[in-house]
């Protein structure tokens, strides 16, 4: 892994329509989406997006419908060409590749899990999972073995001979997940994979993904319109609006320090005491400060609240090695929870 980041986007634009150059020019001069549409007939899908995704990170792009998040993920996967900007996967620019080079990259380095599963109804579950391997040119015996392995990983042991339409929605998406994992990709895309599922199944699938990610440490770009899902799964979250990114940060950063009113609107209803940890709220302090009581930096506010409320003086926050990294008191907590 030569490169520091797995995926790097620099100034990516996507304009739909016949006059992309003119639309880009207008957008650069600060014209709104509506003005560009009426002026050129073009729609700006992705507006100057720049971000990096580190190896093994789960990067969530969160936005409402029409925000351009689906377009963005299709641009990264090069299912639609970008109008301008560069997209580098492990240091190689995808935007300048030919279609056949791209096919090679898709075969070996990336895969995607789709919102409505995108399974092939005329193939058994096993053959669905093996599809990517088949395209890679793997021998039948080998790909069946690999597919069985992956089915086991996603908890579908013994379902290989069934057809997708015989499975429940949650199980179908497990097939979609297994199919994506089978090719052992460097980069996994998730395009709102759980939004078509019932709430309880959705929670199961989220837990399943967290469990798998614990073991596998893949690089993931995850699209969702559900902020709760974003903070549950994402190491970092990008909030997308009108094709542009409003803010990129960890869940705690977005909650404690929203960059725009739009971001604040999402963080407003988040159960902050559950999401934030002592480390997110504390004031940093030197290691030699001594307080009689301490809490762990990774403890949730909810869990330390009872002990904080009965004290008027601050408590020490210590990291995993027992070193004090900051102090926290009930006023600081109240300030954050109030917001």
């Amino acid at each position, binding site marked *: 892994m030569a490169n520091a980041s797995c995926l790097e986007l620099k100034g990516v634009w996507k304009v739909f329509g016949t006059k992309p150059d003119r639309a880009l020019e207008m957008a650069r001069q600060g014209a709104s989406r509506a003005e560009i549409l009426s002026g050129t007939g073009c729609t700006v899908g992705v507006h100057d997006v720049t971000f990096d995704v580190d190896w093994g990170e789960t990067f969530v792009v969160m936005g409402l419908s029409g925000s351009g998040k689906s377009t963005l993920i299709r641009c990264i996967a090069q299912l639609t060409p970008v109008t301008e900007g560069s997209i580098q996967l492990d240091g190689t620019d995808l935007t300048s590749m030919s279609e056949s080079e791209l096919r090679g990259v898709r075969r070996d380095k*990336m*895969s995607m899990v789709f919102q409505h599963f995108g399974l*092939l109804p005329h193939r058994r579950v096993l053959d669905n999972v093996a*599809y990517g391997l088949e*395209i890679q040119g793997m021998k039948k015996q080998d790909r069946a073995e690999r597919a069985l392995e992956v089915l086991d990983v996603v908890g579908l042991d013994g379902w290989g001979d069934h057809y997708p339409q015989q499975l429940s929605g949650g199980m179908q998406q497990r097939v979609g997940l297994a199919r994506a994992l089978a090719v052992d990709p460097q980069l996994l895309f998730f395009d709102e994979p759980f939004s078509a599922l019932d709430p309880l199944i959705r929670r199961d699938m989220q837990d399943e993904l967290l469990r798998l990610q614990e073991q596998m440490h893949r690089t993931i770009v995850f699209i969702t319109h559900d902020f709760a899902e974003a903070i549950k799964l994402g190491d970092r979250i990008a909030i997308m609006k009108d094709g542009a990114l409003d803010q990129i940060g960890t869940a705690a950063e977005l909650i404690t320090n929203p960059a725009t009113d739009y971001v604040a609107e999402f963080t407003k209803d988040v159960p902050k005491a559950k999401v934030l940890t002592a480390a997110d709220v504390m004031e940093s302090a030197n290691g030699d400060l001594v307080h009689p009581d301490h809490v762990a930096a990774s403890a949730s506010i909810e869990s330390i609240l009872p002990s904080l409320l009965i004290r008027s003086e601050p408590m020490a926050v210590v990291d995993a090695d027992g070193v004090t990294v900051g102090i926290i008191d009930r006023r600081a907590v109240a300030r954050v929870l109030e917001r």
Partner: protein
Amino acid sequence: MTAETAPVGAGVSTDVLRKWVPWAVLGLGVVALQVTFGGAGSFPAALDSFINDPLDSLGDWIRANRRSHALFTGFFNPLTDLLNFLIDGIESILLWLPWYVVVGGAFVIPARVNMWKQGLLAAAVLVYTGLIGLWAPTMETLALMSVAVMIAVVLGVPLGILAALRPGVERFLRPILDAMQTVPAFVYFLPLLGFFGIGSVNAAMATVIYALAPVVRLTTLGIKQVPVQSVESARMFGSSTRQTLMKVQIPMALPTILTGLTQTIMMALGIVVLAALMGAGGLGENVFQSLSQRRTGRGIAAGLAIVAVAIVLDRVWRSLANIDPLSRAPRKWLWSGIGALVAAAVIGRLTGLIDFPEVWSLRLFDPIDNIVVWARDNLRWLTRPVNDFIVAGIIVPVRDFLTDTLAWPVLIFVTGWACWHVKGWKLALFGAGSVAVIGLIGMWELSITTLVQVMTATIISVAIAIPIGIWAGRKPRVEAAMGPILDALQTIPSLVYIIPVVILFTVGVVPGIIASVLYAIVPGIRISALGIRQVPEESVEASRTFGATPRQTMLGVRIPLAGPTIMTAINQIIMMVLAMVIIAGFVGGGGLGFETIRALTRSLFGLGAEVGLALVLMAMILDRYTQAWGERLQPPTGH
């Protein structure tokens, strides 16, 4: 249609003007033209020889060069030989096999995908054709149809796929396919006869041309209907365009593609009988014999055998369309079935038990003849006045009015105005121009004769079909009960049920009109019932919550919402009636139908082309006019 809003302040007078000026123009125009051109005589057929002469000499040239010119020796003749070889080959195999092996095959192919009932039905109807002694002509027709369907697949599926992947190809193909479906099949019989000569091959080619459009269209539709996500997921795994097509798009589109084939089979059956006119033999010839001998029973027997061929082809294709991997009979059964058939074939050939035993014969159906004769003798009090009223009360006076009283420029003007009224200038120019061309090629009077018959049949059909359709759309049980009758009317060749009508009404205009009505009401009923059924339940419920009576709901919600679909039903009725023009020609309807037959039987290329052109133009005007009307009934959309 964009809704135009009158400027505020201009008020009522603009609206009134907009509404009445066109009608005033129509009235003034008619009067002025009639006064100016009244008594100017018939249409100057200035272009008649322009088309007639070169085509007649082309016909002569084909006759003279069929054996020598490179176009024939190098292309058409080898192609004809190849197709003949295929058709004859399949026919000989079907006849070489003991009959029970063929019947068994018709069962096993559907049964292998667990379609037991369909397999049994296919086998049973084949046994029927044997029992009544029509086994040989049935196999002949089965062979012809199979080859026609195969050609339709070989040409149609790739074209459809190409059209789905390349919008340019689709734009290019669409008007051609439209034309193939509007032009009545018999129009291109004669040119095919020229290229392929008399025999089964030109019948197969005519079937292919007539029936190709649904294969192409449904293939395109099927490929386009494959969910984007499935195609994207294939691309995401690095599939090439070809891999995506072969592994994802075609397999997922297959059911739709094969539905198109089922439609093709149904359409192809429509011209099996006419194919006999081109020397194809088979069951069509039996029907023609029955018509000329006025044997209703035998005609029905042969007609049912044609339906049997349709059923066999349809069930076999439907079972091939069934790629649902869940409904597959155990492989063991399939192999034992095939094994049994092979063994039966070997034993049958060895013991000589091949031909269908003579159990019954066509005589079985002779009692029907007696019923028809009895009806003719005892229903004269009804048939005579009906016949006389239609002929003397409607057809003759209207035709005379249009040809003799009205000056021909008036008709051109009225057509143009009507087209302008529903659609605009483009259609008006097309309509008026087409009418003028029909006159210029010397088809004026023949076309008006046909037009009057077509319009009479259309009006009767609409008056019968639309109310029944609306009724059936409301009452699923009524529709289910009518299903078999409608199926029978649509599948039994029209020449079959024209036989009793001819006996009842004697030869003339009326049997043709009645046959057209019987043929055309089926799609009329089906499509208007569909329109009523497709009205969103929510709209109906909304109306009912406001306390609307069933009648108010019907008149205020269902019928207006079904309006465009009902217009489609009327459009289909007209197209069906036009397709029957040639049948009307057989039983004394005169007009373009009779001329078509004359041109066909005497190989008059010039006449054939003129009649064909007149019919095509008439069909296109009526088609576009009714379609434009249907568009007007469509509620305006967003932009």
